[in-house]
């Protein structure tokens, strides 16, 4: 079997295990579904009055405005939850056996990324259906929504690689907050509740240079059928993917050294 074939077989086996575990054990899947769904309900329901503020300009309504945020958030946190699963695999010894058995260990990380992507798609479908039920306005075309899905999957991949890097370095479930907090801070230092022009103070200064701002604005552009900041979003995600891949590779080497 060629090196590529070995990588593929390892990746598919790890992915299948991750997907199987997620969909047969509600305790694994539910948090990644419930949290975005809950944020969607709480923000779109409780804060919708803020769309009446002067200079709030988003033609598709506040539910759609928040749907775009929740898509990015669900994808990012799906990656973090996959990081929790990797840490658990190390803590309970499964990952060590996996590393002994796998002919190409890079395939392990790819497998985890595939399972995170499948989970992200599932969560996005659930959130989308919840949006439709709650009267979300869709102004974007099918192509726009396909682009939104690609964006979410790219965010999921970057987040999974970041979390995998942490999980493989620390190899304990107690590393959860270390994976979660930076993602949380990056997301919430972006225009979550209102467009960037209405964000005040120091958060505005940070949000202007935060790549998550571009992700959110691009997502909202796709939802409203007026794509915006697509180029900068693609460039940021490509750069972050490269950096996160190097980070995850370093984590894998660290885990290999630990034995």
């Amino acid at each position, binding site marked *: 079997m060629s090196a590529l074939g070995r990588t593929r077989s390892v990746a598919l086996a790890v992915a299948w295990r991750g997907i199987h575990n997620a969909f047969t054990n509600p305790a694994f899947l539910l948090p990644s579904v419930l949290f975005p769904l*809950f944020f969607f*309900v709480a923000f779109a*329901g*409780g804060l*919708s009055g803020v769309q009446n*503020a*002067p200079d709030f300009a988003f033609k598709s309504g506040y539910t759609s405005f928040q749907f775009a945020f929740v898509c990015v958030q669900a994808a990012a946190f799906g990656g973090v939850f996959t990081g929790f699963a990797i840490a658990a695999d190390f803590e309970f010894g499964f990952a060590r056996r996996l590393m002994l058995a796998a002919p190409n260990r890079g395939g392990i990380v790819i497998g985890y990324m595939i399972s995170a992507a499948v989970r992200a798609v599932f969560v996005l479908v659930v959130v989308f259906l919840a949006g439709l039920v709650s009267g979300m306005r869709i102004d974007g075309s099918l192509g726009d929504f396909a682009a939104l899905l690609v964006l979410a999957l790219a965010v999921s991949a970057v987040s999974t690689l970041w979390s995998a890097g942490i999980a493989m370095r620390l190899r304990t479930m107690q590393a959860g907050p270390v994976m979660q907090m930076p993602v949380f801070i990056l997301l919430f*230092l972006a225009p979550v509740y209102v467009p960037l022009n209405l964000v*005040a103070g120091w*958060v505005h200064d940070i949000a202007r240079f935060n790549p998550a701002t571009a992700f959110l604005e691009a997502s909202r552009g796709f939802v409203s059928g007026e794509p915006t900041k697509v180029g900068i979003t693609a460039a940021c995600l490509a750069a972050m993917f490269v950096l996160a891949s190097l980070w995850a590779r370093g984590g894998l080497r660290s885990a290999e050294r630990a034995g």
Partner: protein
Amino acid sequence: MTALAHSALPTQVGLLAGRAVRRIVRQPAQLVFPILFPLILLAVNTSGLDAATRLPGFPTASYLDFALAIPFMQGALFAALNGGQDLARDIQGGFLDRLAMTPMSGAALLAGQLGGALFMGVVSAVLYLVVGVAFGAGIASGVGGALVLVALAIAISFAFACFGTFVALRAGTGEAVQGFFPLFFVLLFLSSAFFPRDLIEQDWFRVVATYNPVSYMVEGIRSLVITGWDWQALVQAFGLSALAIAAFLALSARALRTRLVRT
């Protein structure tokens, strides 16, 4: 342990409360994260939702003043979670079983355990108030109001801690206590914590927020910050906290008796 068992009730409570406090202080993650996270969220929300203050009818011109009540509630939630998990760990690790073999009173065990949560409540309430004022929040009810605010925050924190203790005693596992954490967050987010009830546009959300007791706890704290002395809001907030404390203490005492009988 023998000295503990034969000592008077206040001594027993003091020893167990001291242990609970030391356990928190010795685990920085238990102290720092529950205090820091609400402050980060306050900072982010204050900038992110500042535009809401420009809405007609918004009760204050500063979202920091409006949102200052939120960290107190989040601090209370974390205190409940950590307190409950500590007790669950005691149950799982067999510490409670060993205590049960001594003549120590159940009341001392409960009060001692809740001492740690009370400590967290005091520390976090004072810190949130100091940070809020340092960043420009005004307390409309003055210095007296600030003291009442701290007292109310401690009462709320204690009420949630009683709930955490009840869950820990009833279920006996840290996972069960952890499992209730999302429920706490749902209660907070589906309340008037982030937006005034009369400005919430979605009818269903306004109804949920109206029936959610957390709304009244938040509004009690908030009234001292932005309104002054709103006796109705204060009576509701203190009343609900007292009710929750009484109910969950009684349930905890019952759950403790059941657990000790099993032992």
